């Protein structure tokens, strides 16, 4: 049993200069065999292991990660959380996650710094206005909070936005989801890792999958840099590298992996207390607790695993940011990076069984997976444990690309697809 984090443990450890905190998770060598192995130690993978252990009583499980946990897209995203999606299936999926976020810090006894500061999506032309109003209505029918704001109300909610009607993409209005916001991305991975570790999950870092062994149509285990690991069930949550693992198993997925970039500025005093996203000009911005502006750019259009994007994408985003927020014109950017995102043709995720028994995939989150982390883990754990999907992720199966029953969120949701 791990010691509970509290104000008292903080005071107690202050006396020993914070040098005697117990390890949040062990660093074990892999066993020969597990009931289930999760490939990928990001937020989604660790959450999957956590819920497998907690809700489905599977204790003999491992998470294998090729680098360090939370070092991939979990540590590279812009930490935006919202659930204002258009279609019923997506609304159900993302709001399930948002509801778990609301109690996550208490459940994990780990402060994930979830902050419901609101997410505002801007409209820049008449079609945007119609789309956003339609989405607001759809959200309300699904029980998701949403309001439509006119230009004046946008300006009142976020005063630094340039609402002049003379700019290239004037602000005609926007939507606001007040329950939406941000969370601390590393803390999510670490909190789930600590919780899973406490229930006996082996978290194995620096362990890259080199092959998937199958016997006919049944999976037998994985070949890794730390040897062969036998497993009855294998759940792959490898984001940009999902296709690589699928190819090892002889499967093809409907994914393309592309670089997505983000950047942060030098830290400044509080200036923007919400998250503002813009679909048409593809720029979104929020401010971290350290004071940095966190800016998300778009994806490049070519397939790449290089974790580097093109300069012109960043330039385009910053052009838009500067026109919308002239106050940032002398701000200096501190860091810029890329992550590899796996994009589905319909911009919706896949949480599904495959044609191979015991092999499951949770992928295709594309540019917007962070917000779904707790829900994705919960539903994927359900799918693995019961060998059938939960009703909330039934629509997000692999077979939809054969049946044609797609969940087409491309451009229909808020932004970032």
């Amino acid at each position: 049993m791990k010691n509970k984090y509290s104000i008292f443990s903080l005071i107690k450890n202050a006396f020993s200069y914070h040098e005697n905190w117990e390890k949040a998770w062990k660093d074990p060598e892999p066993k020969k065999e597990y009931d289930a192995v999760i490939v990928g130690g990001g937020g989604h993978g660790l959450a999957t292991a956590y819920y497998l252990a907690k809700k489905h009583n599977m204790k003999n499980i491992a998470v294998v990660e090729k680098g360090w946990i939370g070092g991939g897209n979990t540590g590279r995203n812009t930490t935006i959380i919202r659930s204002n999606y258009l279609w019923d299936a997506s609304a159900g999926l993302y709001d399930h996650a948002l509801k778990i976020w609301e109690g996550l810090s208490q459940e994990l006894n780990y402060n994930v710094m979830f902050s419901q500061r609101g997410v505002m999506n801007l409209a820049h032309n008449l079609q945007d206005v119609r789309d956003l109003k339609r989405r607001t209505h759809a959200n309300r029918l699904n029980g998701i909070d949403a309001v439509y704001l006119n230009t004046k109300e946008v300006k009142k909610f976020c005063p630094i936005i340039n609402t002049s009607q003379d700019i290239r993409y004037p602000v005609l209005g926007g939507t606001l989801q007040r329950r939406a916001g941000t969370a601390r991305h590393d803390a999510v991975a670490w909190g789930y890792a600590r919780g899973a570790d406490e229930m006996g999950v082996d978290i194995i870092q620096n362990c890259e999958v080199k092959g998937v062994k199958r016997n006919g149509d049944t999976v037998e285990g994985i070949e890794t840099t730390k040897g062969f690991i036998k497993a009855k069930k294998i759940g792959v949550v490898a984001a940009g590298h999902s296709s690589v693992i699928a190819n090892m198993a002889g499967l093809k997925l409907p994914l393309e992996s592309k670089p997505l970039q983000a950047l942060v500025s030098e830290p400044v005093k509080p200036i923007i207390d919400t998250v503002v996203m813009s679909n048409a000009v593809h720029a979104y911005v929020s401010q971290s607790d350290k004071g940095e502006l966190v800016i998300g750019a778009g994806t490049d259009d070519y397939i790449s695993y290089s974790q580097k994007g093109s300069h012109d994408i960043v330039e385009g985003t910053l052009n838009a940011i500067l026109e919308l927020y002239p106050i940032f014109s002398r701000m200096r950017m501190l860091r810029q990076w890329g992550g590899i995102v796996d994009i589905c043709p319909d911009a919706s995720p896949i949480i599904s069984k495959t044609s191979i028994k015991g092999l499951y995939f949770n992928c295709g989150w594309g540019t917007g997976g962070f917000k779904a982390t707790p829900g994705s883990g919960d539903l994927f754990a359900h799918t693995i444990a019961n060998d059938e999907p939960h009703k909330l992720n039934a629509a997000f199966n692999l077979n939809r690309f054969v049946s044609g029953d797609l969940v087409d969120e491309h451009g229909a949701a808020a932004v970032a697809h």
Partner: protein
Amino acid sequence: MFLINCPFCGEREQSEFKAGGEAHIERPKQPTELSDDEWAEFLFMRKNIKGVQFERWNHAHGCRKWFNIARDTSNDQIKTVYKMGEKPPVE
């Protein structure tokens, strides 16, 4: 970001080009005969290779012609450029 040697215009910045995805996916010869599985394979399923991949590119802000390249997707290095209709080079 990288440079692409357009077979018609010479070396230009990648931002002048539009990526056209995986090359050599053949259009079905008998579309009416295709099963749903075969349609899914043609329309959606991609190799999405980490390593040398054959892909189509279009010089959108230049000569607007299509061509193929073989590019290592793990580091964006272009191995060779070849024209539409030509067979992919053997390593």
